[in-house]
Each structure stands twice: as structure tokens, then as C-alpha cells.
């Protein structure tokens, strides 16, 4: 395809949309009247155009997305964080104590001054110290201890008439042990762990298969979401 073809298509689409805006409401009264919905629809179609091949229309939409996302995040961060949490309380309400955390935070920028760059260690060490102290015991509790406890096979899991919780607990335990055996690399060539680790591979493959299937479902759901937008909000041809 010639390089100018996508530009021509884009211009033709723009012209068609202007004509559609004028004439289509007579035939499709449910068509979106909000011009932002039209822009969103065009940008969605522009992004979908990558499915055919790389083209300038896709790149325009992609760059717009990156730029807008960055600007949006920056504006929100300025308003909700810097202004509301730091600058307004300091300068408007006169809470002078905030000078200390703001000054410590500003030390991150000393990275840009070679002679003073060692000062960056101060905010980094404070952040690391705080988060390590808070996180390490809680993470151990929430993940290692709780999950180990949950993998135990207990007699009360085998209720008369409903042995399934117990059976699944055994399957889970086998899965955990054999998967761990697979990742035990420093074993001998004829180790007893070798056949055990082969069972572990089966569990790992089942996990990969489930994750892949779920990923496909997730991506398809995102596509459906955009198609719903095009058919509902833009064209108004499915239930409002």
C-alpha cells in the first residue's frame, strides 16, 4: 500500500463523518450528538487500524494517547498531590512542619547535580527503611504463613458423604510438592526427584494453560468493551 493511502482514507473518513453529522441524524436519530463521542470513536477505529498493518493514522492515535495520558496524570498529580497535600497546607494554611518532608522529597532532585548527588541517599534510605519495616513481617504473614496453612490436609476435610474438599487438598499438596521439586535444580542425574519433577511439569503446564485461556478471555473482553462503545454510545444501534 502506498504511504499516502492511509492519509487519504483518514481525510475521506473525516469528510464522511461531517456529512454523517449533517445528514445521518435524520435516519439514525439515536446517533451520538456529543462530538467527544465521535472523537473517541474515530480514535478507537484508528487504533484498530493496526490490525491491518502499521500506518500513520494508528501512529497519530498512539502518540495522542501517550501524550494525553501523561498530561492527564501530571495535572491530577499536581492538583491532588502537590497542591492539596503539600503546597496549599504550607503556603495557604501556614503548616510550617511540612517544610521537613518537602525538603526531604526535594533531595531526590540532587541526582541532577553531580556534586550533591550523594544526598539522594537520605530520601531513599528513609523510604526503604519505612517500607521494609512495615512490609516484611506483613508480607510473610499474608503470603508464606497463610498459604502454607491453607495447603495443609486436615482430617476434617474428609466429611462423610462429601470427601471432595479432602481430595482436592491432596491434589493441591501434590501439586505444590512436585512443582517445588521441579525447581530444585541442584539434584543428581539419577535423583529420585527427577520423576517427581516430571509430575510437577504437568501441574506447571496446567497452570500455563489456564493462564493463557484467561488471558485470551481478558483480551476479548476488552475488544467487546470497545465494540459496545461503538455500537451503543456512538451509533446507538444496541440497547441504551
Amino acid at each position, binding site marked *: 500500500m502506498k504511504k499516502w493511502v492511509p492519509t487519504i482514507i483518514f481525510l475521506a473518513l473525516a469528510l464522511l463523518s461531517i456529512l454523517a453529522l449533517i445528514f445521518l441524524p435524520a435516519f439514525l436519530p439515536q446517533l451520538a450528538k456529543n462530538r467527544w463521542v465521535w472523537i473517541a470513536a474515530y480514535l478507537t477505529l484508528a487504533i484498530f487500524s493496526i490490525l491491518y498493518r502499521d500506518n500513520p493514522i494508528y501512529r497519530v492515535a498512539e502518540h495522542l494517547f501517550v501524550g494525553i495520558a501523561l498530561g492527564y496524570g501530571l495535572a491530577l498529580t499536581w492538583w491532588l498531590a502537590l497542591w492539596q497535600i503539600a503546597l496549599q497546607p504550607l503556603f495557604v494554611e501556614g503548616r510550617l512542619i511540612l517544610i521537613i518532608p518537602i525538603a526531604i522529597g526535594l533531595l531526590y532532585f540532587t541526582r541532577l547535580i553531580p556534586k550533591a548527588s550523594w544526598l539522594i541517599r537520605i530520601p531513599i534510605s528513609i523510604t526503604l527503611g519505612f517500607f521494609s519495616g512495615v512490609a516484611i513481617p506483613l508480607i510473610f504473614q499474608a503470603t508464606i504463613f497463610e498459604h502454607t496453612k491453607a495447603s495443609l490436609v486436615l482430617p476434617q476435610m474428609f466429611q462423610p458423604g462429601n470427601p471432595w474438599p479432602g481430595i482436592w487438598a491432596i491434589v493441591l499438596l501434590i501439586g505444590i510438592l512436585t512443582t517445588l521439586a521441579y525447581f530444585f535444580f541442584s539434584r543428581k542425574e539419577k535423583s529420585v526427584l527427577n520423576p517427581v519433577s516430571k509430575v510437577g511439569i504437568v501441574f506447571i503446564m496446567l497452570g500455563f494453560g489456564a493462564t493463557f485461556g484467561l488471558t485470551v478471555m481478558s483480551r476479548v473482553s*476488552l475488544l*467487546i468493551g470497545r465494540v459496545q462503545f461503538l455500537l451503543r454510545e456512538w451509533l446507538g444501534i444496541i440497547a441504551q
Partner: protein
Amino acid sequence: MNFWEKLGKIDRRIIYMVLAVAVIVPLILTVKLPSKVRAMPRTKNIFDHIENIDPNGERKAILLSVDFDPQTEPELKPQLEAIIRHAFARNIPLMVMAIPIQGTDIGLEVLTRLAEEHNKEYGIDYVLLGWKPSPVAVILGMGNFINQVFPTDYFGTPLSELPVMKGIRNYDNVGLVMDFTGSSYYMAWVIYAHTPYDVPVATGVTSVSVADIYPFLGSKQFVGMLAGMKAGAEYERLVKDKYYPDKDIFLRGTQAMPALSASLLVIILFVIIGNISYFATRRKK
């Protein structure tokens, strides 16, 4: 190139076209689903938990953390809307916040729209707490005093002036924390809210994350899990069947289900075709 080889080399654009048809046709034809949809236990557990929060007993709120951005909206918005509808239907005070900054605007849009639909009033029935930096400090801090972390709501009104916050001080007054996320923020809620404060936590996630969350369901650290658009549709139906059986409300997830089923069938078909082609051509080689 014989038939089997051709089958294995179908142009990807043809596959995209078939997939597009599989998505668009069921949406346009508004294929009807069976009147009763069987919800998965992990979905039903959240519904039952919210059903057990007594609005006339000890005052307990639901805290929703909108931790997603527009990229994962199609999967998570139906879940968020369904949970908000459920809370509104049961007159449970609702607090909404966000860990990533973009979540605040999504939360505001959904809350405003659904509050209008259900005649709920801002400050009386629900509040948008907004966003604060440092998730760990925010989640831990709310275990002590919510109004110390969020002295004001998103619009700058002091929380103490809002009737919805009456009697709600910390996680002791929260019946359920529900985190909607397209990434791994659910971990932060388990580690920093459930583990130290024992507050019930549930999560709504994209399908991609589901496998990572099962260990937390097995250990009962999560009350339940809404997994992707499908769980959103399940929850929509649970809420509609119980509270709005005759009301005409738009159910985003339910509407998408026939398209999801059709497109997954198409993908399964292409996977089978690809495998048949692979084995047929491999034998020849």
C-alpha cells in the same frame, strides 16, 4: 501448498474479521441469555457477604477502591457498577477511593450516574474520598482513622461534615473492602488491611489475574473474587433478580456475554484448526 498447510497459514486479518463478526453480530442481535444465570461460588460469596451486612444493625460501610484505568474498564466497570447497585439497594453507606490516580475520575463518573438512577444523595448515601499518594501509608492509616488519611472528600468538604461518615472511623466500621484492579493492588489490600486489621476484603480483577488470586481464595484471605467481565455479568444478574426484577436497567456485562461466548468459540475453533494443521503437516515432513 496443500489444504492442511493452507489451513495453518490463514492470514491473521481473516481471523480478525471472523472475530469481529463473532463480537458484533450477537451484540446487534441482542441474543437473550437464559433467565437464570448460575453464579460461580467465588462471585456468590461476595453477594452473600454484602447481604449479611445489616443496614439497621451496627453501622458498617462498604469501601470500594477503584484501582483501574480506562484500559481495563470493559472488564472491571460492570463489576463496579453491580457492587454499587447492590450497596445502594441495601442502603449501605458507600465510600469510594482510588490508589492509582486515574481511578478517582472513573469512580466519580460511575457514582454520579448510578446515584441519579437510584435516587441517592452525595454525602448522605455515598462519598468519594478521592486519592492520596503512597498506597501502603493510606491503607495502613485508614485502619486507625479514615479522616486522618482523608480529612476532606474529593471535593474538599471535611468528612466530619458528611452524614454518610457518621459512626465510621476505621476498618472496624467497614463491612467489606472491595478492590477493583487490573494490576496487583489486591495484594496491598490483603497485606496491609486484611492481615493487620482483619477487615473482610474481596477483589474484582481482570481475567488475566485470576490464577494469581486463587491461593488467596484458598486461604480465605479474600471473601470472594469477581473474575473478569463474566463475573461482572453474574453479579449484575444476582442484583437485578433480587432487587430490580422489573426495572429496566442497562447491564453492561450481561449484554456482552453472548459476544464473549461466540468469540471464545471462534478462538477455540481456530486453535483446533491450527493444531490439526500442525499435526497433519508434521506427519508429512
